C-alpha cells in the first residue's frame, strides 16, 4: 500500500498551476517566480502567512465548493502562504459568501468583531456582492456590505477559484 501511494504521488507529479496576476490575463509560465512573488508580497505586508476565516452566512453552497477548490493541488493556495483558519481570532481576512440570511446576521457580525484589527473583508459571489437571485426579504439581508464593511467584491455565480484568489490578492494590497 505505501508503495502504491508513493508511486501515485510520483506519477501524478506537481499539478499546481501559476497563480493569477491581479487583474491581468495570465501567462502560463514562470510558476516558481510567480509563487515567489506572491509569497514575498504577503511577507512584506504581514511578515507571515495570511490567515483567512471563511463564513457562509446563508449561501447555496456553490461558492463554498469553489472556495474549497482553492485548496486543491491545482491552486495550492497554502503553498502561496494563504491558509484558512478555524477561528476569527486568528484571521487577517474574512471571506464571506451571501446572501446574509436574517438568521446569520448576528453570527456574521460577531465573527467580524472577533477579528483583530487590521482586518479585510472579501465578499464572494453574486449574492455576497449584491444579494443575487435571493435579494432582500423578511429572511435575507442581501449583500454582505449591508452587515459588515467590505473591501473587495468578487462577482460570479459562483466565481471560479482563480477569481476568488485574485480577490484575496487585491484585498492584501
Amino acid at each position, binding site marked *: 500500500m505505501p508503495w502504491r501511494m508513493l508511486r*501515485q504521488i510520483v506519477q501524478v507529479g506537481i499539478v499546481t498551476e501559476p497563480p493569477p496576476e491581479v487583474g491581468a490575463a495570465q501567462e502560463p509560465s514562470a510558476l516558481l517566480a510567480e509563487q515567489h512573488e506572491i509569497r514575498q508580497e504577503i511577507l512584506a505586508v504581514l511578515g507571515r502567512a495570511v490567515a483567512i476565516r471563511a463564513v457562509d452566512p*446563508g449561501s447555496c453552497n456553490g*461558492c463554498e*465548493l469553489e472556495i474549497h477548490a482553492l485548496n486543491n493541488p491545482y491552486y495550492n493556495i497554502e503553498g502561496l502562504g494563504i491558509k484558512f483558519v*478555524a477561528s476569527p481570532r486568528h484571521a487577517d481576512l474574512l471571506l464571506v459568501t451571501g446572501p446574509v440570511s436574517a*438568521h446569520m*446576521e448576528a453570527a456574521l457580525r460577531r465573527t467580524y468583531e472577533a477579528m483583530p484589527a487590521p482586518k479585510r473583508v472579501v465578499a464572494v459571489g453574486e449574492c455576497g456582492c449584491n444579494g443575487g437571485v435571493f435579494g432582500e426579504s*423578511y429572511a435575507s439581508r442581501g449583500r454582505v456590505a449591508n452587515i459588515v464593511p467590505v473591501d473587495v467584491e468578487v462577482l460570479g455565480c459562483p466565481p471560479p477559484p482563480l477569481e476568488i484568489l485574485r480577490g484575496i490578492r487585491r484585498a492584501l494590497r
Partner: protein
Amino acid sequence: MTVDERGKTSGAGPSVNSEVAVPGAVRKPFQLPGLDSTFTRLPGTLPMYRAQVTKAQWRAAASVVRSLGGRLVTIWGIDRRSEAGYCAVAVAYALNAGLVWLDLPLNDTESTSYPDLTATFASAARMQRAVADLSGLIASGAADTRPWLRHAAWPADYFPLCGENNGRERFEALDEPYAFVAVTGDGVHEIPVGPVHAGIIEPGHFRFSVVGEKVLRLEERLGYTHKGIEKRLEAMSLAQGTRIASRVSGDSTVAYGWAYCCAAEALCATQVPARAQWLRAFALERERVANHLGDLGALGNDAAFSFGLAQFWRLREAWQRRSEELVGHRLMMDWIVPGGVKSDLRVEALRTVGEDCVALEAQVRLLESIYDAHAGLQDRFVGTGRVDAQLARQLNLTGMAARASGVGSDLRCDFGGVPYENLQVRKAHAIDGDVAARVAVRFAEIYESLRLIRKIAQDLPSGPTLGNLSEPQARGCGAGWIEGWRGEVLVTIELDDRGLIRRAHCHDPSWQNWPALEHAVIGNIVPDFPLINKSFNLSYSGQDL
C-alpha cells in the same frame, strides 16, 4: 461489500417501467387501497398521481402508505384564500407504484389545522414544524411544536407564505432561546457547535450531550440559511423561477434544475426532445461523480489521510474544468432550462468524454485499493456512525445513505423514465450502514455513473435540444422527481389564475437524513462526528430554503 443489482429494474413485481413509456396513454386509474379518492396522473415520465382528500382520508392514507412499505417524502402548505377561500396542506409519499401527492383543503371550521402524521412517519416532525413557521398551519396533536425554520428573525405571528404578506417585510432579529432537550446525569456536559463552523461549510448548530468523549445525544438546530426561497418564487413566471430553483443547493444544481423544469414542463404541456433528456441525465451523472469525488477526498482528510484529499480533489478539479468546457459552467448551473438544455454538446466533445471516463475510473480504482488497504483509515471508517436497516426504514432514510444501509430506493432504477429506462442503472448497495458502507456506495456509484456517462455519449439520440413551451395551464399542478447525488429531490408547483407560481415547493433529501445523523452519532466519540457528518454530507441550504 457492495452488491450490484443489475436486472432488478427489468424484473417483475413492483416495478412500473411498463407503465411509463407513453405519456397520455390510457391506463388503469391509480388507487390507494381503502381510500376512496380519484387520482389524476400528472404529466411527466415518472409515475406521479395527485388526489384531493378529506381529513379522515389524510390520516388513513398515511397508514395505508406505511403498510405498503411507502415512505413520506415531504409536507407543505398552500394559501389559496384569495381564489378558493381556504388554505391547504399537501403531502407527497413514495410508493412502489410511484409518487402520491395528496392535497387536503382546510375548508371546514378548523381552517388552520390538519391531522398530525408523526405517529405514522417520524420524519414528518420537522416538516410540520416548518409548515407551521412558514404557512401558519398547525399539525394538531403533534408533540414537538417548537419553531424549526423561524429563529426570532421574524415574529411568531408573521407567516411569510401567507398571501397578505409580500415577503419584503423587515423585522429586527432578536435572540430567542431555543429549548434544546437537556440530558442530565453524573458527568454529562454539553458541547455547543455552530452556527459558524470551523471549516468552509454551511452554517448550522449542533448541541452534543457527552460524557467524556462519548456522545450521548446530538440535537441539531438548522434553519440558519433560510433565505425565503419559496416566498421569492411566488408570483414569478415559470421561466423566472428557474434560476432560483437551480440555487436551492449549489452542489445539486443539476438535480434541482431538472426537477423544477420537469414540473414547469408538465404545466406547459411540453414534449422535451429525447436528446435534451439524455443530456440532462449526462449532467446529473457528472454532478454525482463530482460530489462523490469531493466527499471521498474529504472523508480521507477527516481521518487524517490528506493524501486522499489531494488526490480526489485533483480529480474533481479536472472533472469540473471539463464540465466548463462541455456546458460552460464548472457546476453546470443554468444549463438545464424549461424545454430542454441551453446548448448542445459538440461531437468531438463526446469523444473526449469517453476517454475522460476511462482515465478517471482507472484513477479512482487505484485510490480505492489504497483506501481499502489502509488499516488506519479503515479503522476509522468501519463500524463508525452506523444506521441499521430497521432504523433507516423508520426514519425514511433516502438516497445514497439509505442504499448504504441496505434499504434504499433509487428512482433511476425503480422507475426509469427517459433516459434511464434505456440505461439499466445498477443500484449501489451495502448493508452495514456505517461510514465504510457510505464510502463503498460512493465508489460503486462513481463507477456506475461513469458507465452511464459513456453510454449516454455513445447512444445519444439526435435531434433538437429545446422543445417549445406552450402557455402555462392556469391553476395547474406539476411535479418533478429526480434522483440527485444525495437522494430524491422533489419540486412541486401550483399555478394561480394568471399562470404564475402560486406555490413552488422544493424538497431536499436532507430533510429525511439529518435526523438519521442524530442517531448515527450516538455512542460514538466526539472526534468521529466530522467523519460521520461528512459521510452523509447533507445540505443545509436545501433544507433551510
